[in-house]
């Protein structure tokens, strides 16, 4: 078989495969729920209700999408320049760490000063963590997939050390977690009483900014050129090394923001389980979005809705909640395939 690009896909072509992909994921969930004794048809409504059935559910979906937007952007920016950043998880924790250090009363500043400051330093921290692998890549040709991947383990152990040592909350009764953030260091909530916070808005702004950078600035042009053809970019006089390093800074910074947003907006303290793999999910989100910054927002919402919806459904059905992850994985795989089929047709030969 062979794939043949379709010059002008019809409307049906653009809508049908993604719709079938979502349906397919629902069917997978229903079948598995049935095998575990659930009622297959309630699965469908259960997922929708769980994801967007109430104001609470919808805001929870947005809430879970927030860190995914940041890490998705981080990955999209890096992958666009063919910098394979698999370390968004660690960079997220770097941002979170900074937030926990600066936000717990170390700086007696009012919120309008403190928040931007922490935000900036959190970005720097995330950036710094990717800068090392980027330098190793550009100077010594060390594969960044491996260095960033391994740094995830190393940095998490480092955070673990800090949380059991110097950063341990003295009021925390021994549990490894940082002290609580002072109110000035907290991102306010958007709706009182519900968890959604201004980190979400920040994520949307970040997506818009990345889009502008990509499309309108010389840096964006350079990052794309380096990613599309490093050799040609170098020949054309684009400073490939510098661009790679700048890309690393931007990417790491965005992942750092995810940590800032989670600690300052959501949790108010740093724990070792702050992120259930947001850094890795960011890769999924970015690729679903075809590395497009605005697509990242849509993809993050999609991923979050599927997870939150399926998680709630599995509880309602009394089947193991691992079903949520299964459905997410199925939706993801079906969806990337569907996106492909909107643009290509399969030809036999």
């Amino acid at each position, binding site marked *: 078989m062979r794939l043949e690009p379709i010059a002008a896909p019809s409307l049906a072509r653009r809508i049908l495969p993604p719709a079938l992909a979502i349906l397919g994921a629902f069917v997978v969930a229903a079948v598995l729920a049935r095998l575990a004794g659930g009622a297959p048809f309630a699965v469908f409504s259960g997922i929708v209700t769980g994801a967007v059935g109430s104001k609470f559910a919808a805001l929870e979906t947005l809430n879970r999408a927030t860190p995914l937007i940041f890490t998705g952007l981080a990955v999209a920016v890096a992958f666009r320049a063919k910098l394979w950043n698999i370390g968004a998880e660690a960079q997220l924790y770097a941002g979170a760490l900074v937030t926990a250090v600066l936000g717990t009363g170390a700086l007696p500043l009012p919120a309008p000063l403190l928040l931007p400051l922490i935000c900036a330093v959190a970005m720097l921290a995330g950036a710094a963590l990717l800068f090392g692998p980027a330098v190793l890549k550009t100077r010594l040709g060390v594969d960044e997939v491996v260095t960033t991947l391994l740094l995830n383990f190393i940095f998490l152990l480092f955070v673990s050390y800090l949380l059991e040592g110097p950063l341990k909350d003295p009021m*925390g009764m*021994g549990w490894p977690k940082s002290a609580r953030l002072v109110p000035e260091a907290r991102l306010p909530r958007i709706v009182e009483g519900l*968890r959604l916070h201004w980190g979400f808005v920040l994520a949307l702004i970040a997506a818009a900014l990345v889009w502008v950078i990509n499309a309108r600035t010389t840096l964006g042009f350079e990052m794309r050129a380096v990613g599309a053809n490093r050799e040609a970019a170098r020949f054309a006089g684009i400073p490939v090394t510098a661009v790679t390093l700048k890309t690393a800074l931007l990417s790491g910074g965005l992942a750092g923001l995810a940590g800032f947003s989670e600690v300052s907006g959501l949790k108010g303290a740093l724990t070792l389980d702050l992120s259930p793999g947001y850094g890795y999910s960011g890769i999924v989100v970015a690729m679903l979005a075809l590395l497009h910054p605005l697509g990242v927002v849509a993809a993050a919402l999609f991923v979050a809705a599927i997870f939150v919806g399926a998680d709630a459904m599995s*509880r309602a059905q009394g089947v193991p909640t691992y079903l949520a992850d299964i459905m997410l994985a199925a939706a993801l795989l079906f969806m990337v395939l569907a996106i492909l089929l909107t643009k290509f047709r399969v030809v036999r030969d």
Partner: protein
Amino acid sequence: ALTGLGAGRARAEGEVLKVAGIYTVPVEQQWVSRIHVAAMAAKERGEIDYTYSENTANTDYPRVMREYAESGYKLIVGEIFGAEQEAREVAAEYPEVAFLMGSSFAPDAALANLSVFDNYIQDASYLSGIIAGAMTKTGNIGMVGGFPIPEVNRLMHAFMAGVKETRPDATFQVSFIGSWFDPPKAKETAYAMIEAGADLLYAERFGVSDAAKEKGVLAIGNVIDTQADYPETVVASALWNFQPTLDAAIAAVKAGAFTAADYGQYSFMKAGGCALAPHGTFEGKIPQAALDKVAAQEAAIKSGAFTVAIDDSEPKSS
């Protein structure tokens, strides 16, 4: 308001209570397994209707609490060590739901529907240490833990204190493997300790007793009873029994009397919340002097004459 409460109470007594567990790890994890087993037992007895969510990330914890509260569960059990603040906010929004949560913090009178508990089984750990001290020949004891959190640390310290009662010169090798579930790694760590002279291991994690069994040294169990699996290896175990804690909470909810309280006391030996497991195959192999000491200290503990110190700091090798 009074009549309303009364009506609720009448209904609650007539029905089975809907109980939900929310755990951040799978129910095989020792600590959680004790809660789970107790809840399953209550369910068997027809007292409660029980469901649970395991492996819930702390990030999702508040959402899951809400989902259960919204769908009619009246008692929610779990562990909020990593999500204290948010969990308390959710609890405040559902005053008619009772929350019984593993927590390092004290109950808050302002939050009447949230009670706390923890595995305060240092009493039993201490007693198991007494036996360990009597059974070790080299006086070199290995301890393999997952993470040095208070729930782990306090039991290790109590155990070490117990060992010192019968073997004052004992030394301890302490390691943390940085994971709750990596039995192969725990096993490797235990092997290393045996190589370094340990002839008795404190089995905080799965995998440790296996190494002990293979290498022919002894082990002391913790939280759960594994004597049946390692009959020649596990000398004694400090058991956590969650039943008293859960029963008290169920009764309180059914009586409409659930208030902010510290259920930690129900894990104490006095309350039957912990015990030394039966010695099983080691019956008769443990020096009588040690058993006498255990009996004496157990009596002292139960009478209140002796209190095992609670030390939550990270234990170090000596």
